[in-house]
């Protein structure tokens, strides 16, 4: 009896092969995951290594260098990017939240379907198309402006904000709605007094994530706000200097000085994007947990 058992337990050729394949698959999956993390690390380290040495107080506060000039800074880019993203958020936030409220609180399934479809398709649009569209709409025949760039970025943000808002609105317990209705509250009071406030955390973090995404978008700005002066510009009716487009321009340059500036600007942009998205993600997970309970 015992002899038979050991004979069964010893892995024969086929079992050994199966085990080996299994082991190989596991190793490959591990390698793939750590390779992805490795790529992230390499990109971040490359940018940090090359950019950090260039960053100084002067670099962050001075105007852009004129052609061939050494030194200079990126203050106009930081201000311009901030204004562009602010314009985009000012357009996309109300539109996105209102659309989400309509979809979750008012629309029947049949009415919601085409709107949902539109949002899904909009989020999948190549961002270069948005640049071309806004060029045709606002720039062609006029001139490039911060408003045009901000509007193009708002189309990137709109579906993101609408989707994240929808998700948290759905998490608001049905009992809260019903309770409020039972007390005789009207619909708009329930929405503005109860549903939106309890979803506010999620809406804000969703917006912050959308801002982080929009801040790094280059393609929508390439034809809408890419020809600008080298000084800090506050007027959104003028083309606004901004980080993504300038990184693009510098990266295409042959001058190694420009490459250094590109790395340093990329570091500023990357740091902003990564830090905001990590923080927003953490907040999102927390607020979801809170609502889910």
């Amino acid at each position, binding site marked *: 009896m015992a002899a038979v058992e050991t004979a069964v337990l010893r892995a024969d050729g086929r079992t050994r092969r199966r085990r080996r394949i299994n082991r190989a698959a596991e190793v490959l999956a591990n390698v*793939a995951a750590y390779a992805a993390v490795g790529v992230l690390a390499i990109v971040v380290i490359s940018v940090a290594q090359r950019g950090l040495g260039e960053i100084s107080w002067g670099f962050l506060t001075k105007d852009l260098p004129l052609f061939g000039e050494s030194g200079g800074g990126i203050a106009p880019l930081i201000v311009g990017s901030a204004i562009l993203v602010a314009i985009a958020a000012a357009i996309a936030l109300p539109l996105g939240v209102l659309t989400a409220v309509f979809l979750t609180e008012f629309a029947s399934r049949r009415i919601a379907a085409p709107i949902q479809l539109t949002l899904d398709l909009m989020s999948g649009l190549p961002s270069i198309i948005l640049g071309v569209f806004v060029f045709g709409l606002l720039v062609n025949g006029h001139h490039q402006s911060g408003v045009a760039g901000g509007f193009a970025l708002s189309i990137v943000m709109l579906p993101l904000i609408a989707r994240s808002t929808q998700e948290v609105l759905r998490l608001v317990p049905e009992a809260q709605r019903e309770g409020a209705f039972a007390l005789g509250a009207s619909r708009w009071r329930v929405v503005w007094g109860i549903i939106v406030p309890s979803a506010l955390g999620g809406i804000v973090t969703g917006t912050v994530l959308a801002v982080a995404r929009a801040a790094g978008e280059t393609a929508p700005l390439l034809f809408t706000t890419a020809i600008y002066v080298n000084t800090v510009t506050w007027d959104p009716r003028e083309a606004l200097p901004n980080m993504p487009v300038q990184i693009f321009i510098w990266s295409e340059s042959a001058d190694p000085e420009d490459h250094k500036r590109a790395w340093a600007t990329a570091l500023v942009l990357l740091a902003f994007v990564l830090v905001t998205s990590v923080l927003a993600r953490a907040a999102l997970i927390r607020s979801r947990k809170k609502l889910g309970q």
Partner: protein
Amino acid sequence: MSTVPFTRPLTGTRRLRDRIGDRLLLILTLLASLAAIALMVAIVYKVFKGAHLSFSEFGLGFITGTTWDATNNVFGAGTFLYGTAVTCAIALLVGGPFAIAIALFLSELAPRGVRGVVGTLVEMLAAIPSVVLGLWGILVMGPFIAHHVEPWLNSAFGWIPLFGEPSTGSDVFIAGLILAIMIVPIVASICRELFLGVPRDLEDGALALGATRWEMVRGVVLSSSRPGIAAALILGLGRALGEAIAVTQVIGSATAINVSLFEPGDTLASRIAAQFQGAASAMQTSALFYLAAILLVIGLITNLLALVVVRRFEIKRTGAA
């Protein structure tokens, strides 16, 4: 509310305010939703309108024409369609298996603590702005691939025309790899959700029958989420198709089709990004709009396709449950 007939409003004013408030909220939210639809329609309309001039000049032949001659105003999209197809194919071939493997790692293999950290880091990869990835692509990854990977591929597979002489650091192959990096987080996060959704009973059943973990994954996890994986890959494709900036930075620009992957090329999106600003004639601008229109149509079809698959898949899953 109207179903409770004996409720009387406390005061007339409150009721009026509520009625106006309700109506106003409905109108406001409806208008916002309609604005979203109008925006989408406007995008399609503007792009097609911009393409009108070149469409009436070249017709549908534009799509297959491989000439792009700004001095003689003869334009065609063929070269860029080819470039788009090739870079996307590389991205999917390299990035797809990677992404699926990562998703399997995150859903089946990784210990709980590792899962969250690695999952977040992979998603962070998607947060890197494409212009930054492109910058890294031309200055770091491109030269590395051109000096270390391409010579090896050339010496090993040089008899295939695809793997010609190594480039100097900007070519179609490198563009494909950059796109692969971009689609991995998207495909991986969708696939992970799919794999986590596979019923535990089925997985345990397979293991109880003596299957190894890999056999269980192949027989249960992968086979039951095949349509979802397809949708994830299509969504990744949609992302790769439309990426303009990073591709422009690393692909090197070319107006003719090069068979070798180690030669410069151009995609629809990268050509628009590179030339739109400096278009020399109205016809060239219009031809670029035409490229945008083609890209728009392909992008919309791709996303619709993914949505259809996702929807079908979900119906099937809830139907089975």
